[in-house]
């Protein structure tokens, strides 16, 4: 068997991947981390992370990303911006096809994370970047003294729509149930906020506007069937996430929602292939759980390499 270039290739540069990289670099494995877009992943679009221990005042997603990256690099982690186009996992030496070359490795950690789910309603795609947004920290300041609609009822929706009230004069949070799912402290802040109004039992059915962007959002009450139009300049959508696993079809086992199935060592259905963070089947998707996954995955890789 030819010796592969790497002991470990980590795909994805969010908290799970960066932590796996830190542990693997300290274990002196030959390791590279590949990120297709921007190091940090979903935490880059979080306005403030206040439940990651060690930062009593909280920390911004981009500062936490910088800290994690610097820490991993200090131990020699190699990081490259590149797109993985295909994987060949049929042999013990895995082949990773990149946009410009192929590399080989004994092991892979899949830490590709997830992307925000869409509503799949009229206007959502056509007004993306023209009022439709998935990122309050990126786009909130464009809505100073304007009215916006937000959609969802989980942690992200409730936290980010509360954040939007710093800029917008009014935020309508449209939620399809009669109670929120978000963590209690986030709910309390939202319910106390005078600029935020929750539209219960309702869904957004279309986003409408003109050449200048979003102008109104159509909302339907699922209990009464009544519809109303909310005049708004923006529509922020936070209705869950989709795992980035499309490129893994017919390789590692996925659950019915597309998340990678792993055991408690973060081993997937293929020997030498691991998964960590939001991309795996897990009951909780947080920075704190992602870094735990990443360290376990790197530890398991270390064992695997020792036994080759």
């Amino acid at each position, binding site marked *: 068997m030819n010796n592969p270039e790497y002991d470990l290739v980590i795909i994805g540069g969010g908290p799970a991947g960066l932590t796996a990289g830190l542990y693997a670099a300290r274990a002196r494995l030959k390791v590279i981390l590949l990120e*297709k*877009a*921007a*190091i*940090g992943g979903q*935490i*880059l*679009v*979080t306005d403030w992370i206040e439940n990651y221990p060690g930062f009593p005042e909280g920390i*911004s*997603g*981009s500062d936490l*990303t910088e800290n994690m990256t610097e820490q991993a690099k200090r131990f020699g982690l190699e990081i490259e*911006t*590149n*797109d993985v186009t295909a994987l060949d996992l049929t042999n013990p030496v895995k082949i990773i096809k990149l*946009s410009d070359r192929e590399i080989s490795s004994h092991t892979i950690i899949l830490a590709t994370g997830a992307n925000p789910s869409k509503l799949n309603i009229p206007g959502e795609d056509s007004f*993306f*970047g*023209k*009022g439709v*947004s*998935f*990122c309050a*920290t*990126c*786009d909130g*300041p*464009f*809505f100073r003294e304007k009215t916006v609609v937000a959609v969802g009822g989980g942690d992200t929706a409730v936290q980010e729509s509360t954040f939007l009230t710093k800029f917008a004069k009014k935020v309508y949070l449209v939620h399809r149930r009669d109670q929120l799912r978000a963590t209690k402290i986030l709910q309390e802040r939202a319910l106390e906020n005078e600029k935020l109004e929750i539209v219960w039992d309702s869904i957004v059915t279309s986003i409408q506007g003109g*050449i*200048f*962007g979003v102008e109104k959002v159509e909302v339907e009450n699922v209990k009464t069937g009544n519809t109303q139009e909310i005049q708004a*300049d*923006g529509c922020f959508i936070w209705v869950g996430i989709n795992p980035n696993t499309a490129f893994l079809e017919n390789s590692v086992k996925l659950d019915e929602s597309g998340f990678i199935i792993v055991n408690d060592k973060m081993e997937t259905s293929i020997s030498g292939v691991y998964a960590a963070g939001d991309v795996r089947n897990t009951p909780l998707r947080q920075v704190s759980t992602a870094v735990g996954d990443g360290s376990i995955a790197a530890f398991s890789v270390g064992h695997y390499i020792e036994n080759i």
Partner: protein
Amino acid sequence: MAESVLEINDNNFETEVLQSEKPVLVDFWAPWCGPCKAISPVIEDLAGSFSDKIKFTKCNVDDNPVTPGKFEIRSIPTLIFFKNGEVIDQIVGMVPKTKLEEAINNII
């Protein structure tokens, strides 16, 4: 490295972008935008490879309200490609580097 991406503003947008002989990429960004900060090394990297064929610029939307308003920008990062003063392509949000390379190759 950083100098290969030219900082533009409301005053010189006309001359540096619209009247440029080369195609121009404008990266609309702000200091408070995490994803903008995260993609800037990628843009600088691309500027290193393509700066002979395309002019790489960035525009801080906080300091320059006029230009982003003109192009109805309500989301950043937004990248706009200009050729002969016309908008040729527009990319919103964080996208893979390969997609940016594709967009660049399409206009040069």
